[in-house]
């Protein structure tokens, strides 16, 4: 039988705030356990939560960027369950009234057509701590550094129909959230986490089949693979006439399969109710509109503008705007060096290659937009050759020095000093009588070899045009002497 795949995704994203959701502890990773903790995030008796307004601002921005309706009043609720990584025995979350509802983002479906994925809700909540089990297996320790870190959970409707759509949805979502700078969205580091609900139903049916929930996928690739695996597994079960058991499965990256989870994550009655220790979030129309107007130009709009304003090819515009930082980098460089296509080539080519090989993000890299502009200007001014420029980029990228500084320190200045070049040319002419004869005999192409020899002697620093001119002049002089 042929089946329709039905997938819904729940994505948790850590908000990139200064401090935690309900206390002043820093929201950043530290290797030592239980450093970023206080009486509030450890749930001491007598400590009271107070809401971080920056977290609300970021959740609001994210909701708006995902085209959500914004609740003018939303509440925090307690989701009650026992686990040692939950300091209070409950997680503060928005269960009844989330900050955002009824949003959507558009992706390409498997046929490359535009498809709208509905986002049921975006809600704020606090993260839990982390359990660490000793290698000997005789102790479990808990690290509360992450407890109370602000998250948003973004829940889609069951609108996705394939593992590919799921991956494209995640890529798009990540792009949007990075664009509005609410999170760094690094799945490998846990700042973006994804759970998937998946079921199959006979093609044409409108009733949802029984679903399984997939957890522990730590890359987009793992999401795609585990969904594919789960589709095959469910299909096999249904084909054999059996029923899919509703359960939570864990993706195991080593064995490349889903494994049923035991114990603690069985069905729960979370006994949610509104937290009496927190006031509701009240947002006025003016506040919402102010946030809306502060949204940055999003990737698609920006790509269109790049084509129109800078005359870039579609491909360039899409690649450059895929990340806000890269698009900013490009435009910042353009302010100092007005040749869009050349800048685009360098950013997409040389710079991206170096970022990829070092694993750095563009905003972490020491080679700044004004450095690139300086480098390109130096090529134009014949200070360095295009070939040397790549070496300069390497050094500048590595050491964070300005290209001009690198050129000076490394003695890479292009040799345009006529007498210096003439000395080298004399040596080359003297050392290559055959080529000289060939040239003088009418084989003008032989000059290329001689220029190459001069470049070699000067380790690429010679101004090739000037070398050419001087060579021709010298050779003509020789001819007239003969």
């Amino acid at each position: 039988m042929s089946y329709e795949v039905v997938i819904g995704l729940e994505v948790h994203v850590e908000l990139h705030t200064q401090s935690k959701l309900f206390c002043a502890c820093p929201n950043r990773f530290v290797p030592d356990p239980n450093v970023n903790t206080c009486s509030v995030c450890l749930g001491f008796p007598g400590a009271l939560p107070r809401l971080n307004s920056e977290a609300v601002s970021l959740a609001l921005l994210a909701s708006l960027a995902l085209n959500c309706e914004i609740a003018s009043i939303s509440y925090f609720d307690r989701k009650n369950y026992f686990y040692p990584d939950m300091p209070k025995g409950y997680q503060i979350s928005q269960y009844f009234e989330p900050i955002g509802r009824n949003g959507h983002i558009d992706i390409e479906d498997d046929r490359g057509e535009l498809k709208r994925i509905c986002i049921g809700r975006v809600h704020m909540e606090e993260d839990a701590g982390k359990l660490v089990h000793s290698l000997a297996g005789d102790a479990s320790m808990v690290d509360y550094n992450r407890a109370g870190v602000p998250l948003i959970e973004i829940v889609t409707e069951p609108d996705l129909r394939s593992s590919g759509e799921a991956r494209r949805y995640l890529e798009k979502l990540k792009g949007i959230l990075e664009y509005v700078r609410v999170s760094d969205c690094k799945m490998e580091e846990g700042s973006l986490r994804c759970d998937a609900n998946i079921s199959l139903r006979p093609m044409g049916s409108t009733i949802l089949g029984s679903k399984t929930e997939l957890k522990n996928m730590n890359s987009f690739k793992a999401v795609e693979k585990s969904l594919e695996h789960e589709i095959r597994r469910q299909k096999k079960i249904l084909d054999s006439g059996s029923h899919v058991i509703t359960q939570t499965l864990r993706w195991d990256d080593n064995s490349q399969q889903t494994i049923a989870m035991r114990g603690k994550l069985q069905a729960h009655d979370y006994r949610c109710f509104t937290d009496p220790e927190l006031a509701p979030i009240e947002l006025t129309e003016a506040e919402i509109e102010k946030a809306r107007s502060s949204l940055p130009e999003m990737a698609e709009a920006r790509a269109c503008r790049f084509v129109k304003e800078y005359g870039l090819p579609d491909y360039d515009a899409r690649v450059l705007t895929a990340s806000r930082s890269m698009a900013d980098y490009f435009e910042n460089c353009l302010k100092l060096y007005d040749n869009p296509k050349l800048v685009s080539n360098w950013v997409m080519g040389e710079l991206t290659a170096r970022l990829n090989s070092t694993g750095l993000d563009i905003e972490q890299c020491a080679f700044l937009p004004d450095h690139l502009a300086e480098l390109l200007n130096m090529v134009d001014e014949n200070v360095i050759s295009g070939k040397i420029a790549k070496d300069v980029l390497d050094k500048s990228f590595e050491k964070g020095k300005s290209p001009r500084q690198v050129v000076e320190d490394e003695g890479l200045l292009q040799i345009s000093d006529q007498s210096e070049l003439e000395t080298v040319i004399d040596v080359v002419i003297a050392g290559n009588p055959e080529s000289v004869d060939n040239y003088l005999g009418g084989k003008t192409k032989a000059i290329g070899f001689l220029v190459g020899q001069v470049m070699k002697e000067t380790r690429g620093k010679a101004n090739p045009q000037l070398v050419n001119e001087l060579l021709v002049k010298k050779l003509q002089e020789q001819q007239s002497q003969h």
Partner: protein
Amino acid sequence: MNYFDLTAVKAAEAVNNKEISARHLIENILEHCIDLNKKLNTFTYIAGTEALEHADSVDQKINSGYSMPLAGVPIAIGDNIAYKEMPAGLGSGAFRDYKPPFSAAAVEKLIGAGAVVIGKTNTGDMGIALNKALSPAGPALNPWNINRISESAGAAALAVRQCMLILESDSEGALRQGAATCGVFGLRPTPGRISRYGLNICSGSFDQVGLAAAAVADVSLAFQAVVGYDERDILTSVSRESRVKSEPGKIPNEIKLAFSPESFDLIDPISAEKLSQFRERCSSHGFILVETPLKLLNNALKAFYVITYAETSSTFARFDGIRYGRAAEADNLEDLYYKTRRLTFGHEAQRRSVFGTYLLSKGNFEHYYQQALKVWSLVKQEFAETMSNCDFLVLPTVKSTALKESEDSDFLKLLDEDIFTAPVTMTGLPSLTLPAWRENNFPAGIQLIGHPFSDEMLINIADIIKAEIEYPVPGNSEGEAG
């Protein structure tokens, strides 16, 4: 000078004027306190040298020219309120040696005003009212009738001058009831006037930090010291707005007092008779009397307990022994929860955990909890209508002064004792209990309820009523232990 006739106002005056030293005052009070504690069990911790050293530092300040509103005034704090210099037992065996890492905001403010903390007063199991919840420390007794458990240990301590001011929690009305049966003044302020930071909250909707003293002027002085915004308790943000009501009329015939016919039906006949006489006296002294129905008291009480139990079950989930308190020896996680919670909670805290969990569970949540929320809003509405017709509402504080220790076993009957105080808690109106008459030589108090944020007015009007109406002097020779 007889230190035990001093009010807090007089004591501070004497210390500020260097008529007595804070050290001498505290030494005498401590001795007296230790002595009476053997009989009344009002304190779970009595300070030693730390209080004397603190008194010395007060004396030093006075000697160097400072003057402080509560200079040298001996105060006691409920054992469920944090003061980092002293253990906070929370009425639990697991917290016998627990020293909180911070002090409650109100405690800090009182100390800043020159007060000296002389000890921690006895609280019931996990801070629940003493008359309902047995703690490992056992009950505190009412000094007027040592067969009776005092609802508030601090009120009992005030009646016999073990201290001059107390800071205790008030939820269903323990502080107000204790004040009423011990013959002192007890204030439950408008929520947000006094920071709750440092109070071990059971029910976030209802628990507040309250004040009591043997004289109304002392309540006024202490309230001025602790009132106001505290960034650690978001509820106090209301204190930043100028909602505080202006002064009321200065003479009785400018003041409208409301009485409710239901209160006469709901108290025992002797008390009803006394309440009528009190009303007559108010009338003959010129107060304008109005009658107002309060038909929802019974339903309010039930709703109050549904909400309190539900919230308490969730708040108590944090007591797992992992971060603070004592943890039981256990073989696995489930066992750790089970044993630690049995070790931590007495009978009533266990009951609230179990019942509360039941009330929030699927199905019950809709039937009980959500219904209780509806009743809550109706109760607020009924009281708001009442308050719109008067300046102050007069209600009894307790049903009967004749309650004996042996009646403790009847759990539902005990809850019924809160019929006048718990509904007032739900309204968020400030309430002050003041001594009003005697029954069989036992003091009895009535509750004066004001408009929201009229706490200062409430204290003033209590002073007018005190001036107009005869009432017993607490702690005089007729007291059993005084």
